[in-house]
């Protein structure tokens, strides 16, 4: 057990993966000497060399497209996209090629490519640096989409993503990069796509992933002071969603609020609400409520705290759900 930041956990995880499998490559803009703009790949090029930690030209489609080629050659590229808003030039390669290659080849080729994307807001950045585009990937068959909330999950889920023979979009909650947590690098991790009950409760379930898990835990704590006992489910995986775990929770609590930073409209909450409503129709005492971003571009930094779902907005939804 070592306490480390989430960024450091990812760094260690990459290091472990590169040590144990010579086919693992790290590639992206500024991942070499600089160690990435968040220093997540710090020191890797120094230790593994330029052939395995590759500073690429400034072209995201090129990065993902060449990673696909490297995967065809037997490599396992871990691609870094510098910020959420810069994944879109690579979107075509991800959606039409990476996601579909295995099926197109009737299973004859595998696409073990991990795309790491620091995502979400709350760091006071300029436009395109604070977005949460996970729904745009979860809708696409052939991709797996995950997001860790803690250093331990960051470490282990990345290990598992790299070992996975499918393309994995690995969303890193960038505003949690500097949060510390215990990481047991000798543990037996939970299955990659398993949701975990981060806090047990009886009155209502809060479901979240990535950066919003912490907010939900804080909300649960605040609610406790008001005598409300909230359960928090850390979904961890967005494609697939572990609906079994969530269903069990909702059957117990009978109420669900889903929280994410991404805009609510066509967001993850919609899928989760629909499916849980279908599975738990007779259990639910309130409609599944969703808390998330508005249908607007991510706003300038000086209003992002109002835009982002925080304690108050989560508790407001809890109140509304409990009022049914």
């Amino acid at each position, binding site marked *: 057990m070592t306490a480390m930041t989430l960024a450091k956990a990812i760094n260690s995880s990459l290091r472990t993966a590169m040590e144990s499998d010579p086919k693992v490559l790290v590639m992206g803009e500024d991942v070499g000497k600089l160690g990435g703009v968040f220093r997540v790949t710090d020191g890797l090029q120094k230790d593994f060399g330029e052939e395995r930690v590759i500073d690429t030209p400034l072209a995201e489609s*090129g990065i993902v497209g060449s990673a696909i080629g490297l995967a065809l*050659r037997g490599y396992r590229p871990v691609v870094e996209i510098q910020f959420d808003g810069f994944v879109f030039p690579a979107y075509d390669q991800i959606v039409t090629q990476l996601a579909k290659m295995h099926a197109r080849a*009737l*299973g*004859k080729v595998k696409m073990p490519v991990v795309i790491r994307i620091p995502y979400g807001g709350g760091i006071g950045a300029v436009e395109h640096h604070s977005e949460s585009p996970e729904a745009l990937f979860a809708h696409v068959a052939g991709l797996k989409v995950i997001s860790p909330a803690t250093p331990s999950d960051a470490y282990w889920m990345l290990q598992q993503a790299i070992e996975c*023979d499918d393309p994995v979009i690995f969303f890193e909650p960038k505003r949690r990069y500097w949060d510390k947590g215990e990481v047991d690098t000798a543990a037996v991790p939970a299955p990659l796509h398993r949701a975990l009950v981060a806090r047990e409760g009886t009155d209502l379930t809060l479901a979240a992933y990535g950066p919003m898990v912490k907010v939900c835990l804080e909300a649960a704590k605040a609610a406790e002071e008001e005598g409300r006992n909230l359960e928090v489910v850390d979904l961890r995986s967005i*494609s697939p969603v572990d609906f079994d775990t969530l269903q069990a929770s909702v059957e117990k609590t009978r109420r669900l609020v889903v929280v994410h930073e991404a805009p609510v409209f066509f967001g993850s909450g919609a899928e989760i609400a629909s499916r849980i409503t279908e599975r738990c129709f007779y259990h639910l005492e309130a409609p599944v409520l969703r808390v998330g971003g508005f249908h607007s571009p991510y706003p300038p930094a000086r209003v992002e705290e109002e835009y982002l779902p925080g304690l108050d907005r989560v508790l407001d939804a809890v109140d509304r759900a409990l009022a049914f």
Partner: protein
Amino acid sequence: MSVKSTAARSSRGGAKRRGAAGQVPELVQLLTPEGERVEHSEYSIDLSPEELRGLYRDMVLTRRFDAEAITLQRQGELGLWASLLGQEAAQIGSGRATRPDDYVFPTYREHGVAWTRGVDPLNLLGMFRGVNNGGWDPNTNNFQLYTIVIGSQTLHATGYAMGVAKDGADSAVIAYFGDGASSQGDVAEAFTFSAVYNAPVVFFCQNNQWAISEPTEKQTRVPLYQRAAGFGFPGVRVDGNDVLAVLAVTRAALERARSGGGPTLVEAFTYRMGAHTTSDDASRYRLDTERQEWEAKDPIARLKAYLDNEKAADDAFYAEVEAESDALAKRVREGVRAMPDPDPMTIFDNVYADGHALVDEERAQFAAYRASFADTQEGAVR
């Protein structure tokens, strides 16, 4: 072919028979349209009669296969076909320049290249019949699946070539694309990546003068092979209807790649003799006279003229190739007709290599749904 038409074409950067004195001709040619051997200052080739006959056989069989596929489409056995008619020399010449350990990234029209790689022609038809999206194992013949989204495969080829270099292997990679594809950002990014990493890849552009209804002028105002220099690697234009020149130029480019010289762009100047696909009606946008002019440059007729001039082939050989063609066509025809529709449950296969809970759930639901029809008369009627 009239000399006039060649001249007209060359005004838009096209074919020139010979460069001005002292200059390298823009278009590498080793065999004139009349089947005469000419020399080139940079590229040479010396093939045995047997090798020459082999190229002829490849081209004839490829053309026959292509024609059969068009017929099968007309008969409703295929949903679509993208004919390579006219591009046999570009494909056979370049494909025969590859080694087994090289890796090929085609678009959707590289039936001739597939042939040279040993891919069973029947395999190519699955996608056009609508029974799969690419029915072969790319690693069996180092021939990647057909790629429909224009330009994408040039990046895959580049990445693969980067991997070859990392492995210290001396193989090369070749990426096929069209004149239209040259406009895609992905192709430019492939040029950038391959140059920066000095990847052993040959970009083989079949400039067949058309991207569906758009002539090459809608993609570029200078000859395409010139694109390469600005990315820091050589570009060369070869007469794409001259199988010897294509073979020589592609061999040199692949050899350069294998020996650490990095990427090369080869522009094979050729012509799409048919419509874009069986869904297309070329008469809406181009004159048949253009097609007729190119007929005079036919790649197969050209090589046959040379074989005959050289007395490198006799009637028995031609008859044998003809018989082989018939047999191939028959095999293809019968093979396609026997190709079964996929089981609907295969929709859920191979979406993921390591499984996905939602796919499992949907598979089970769909199986139950389908099973429900087995016992109800009512359901079956709907």
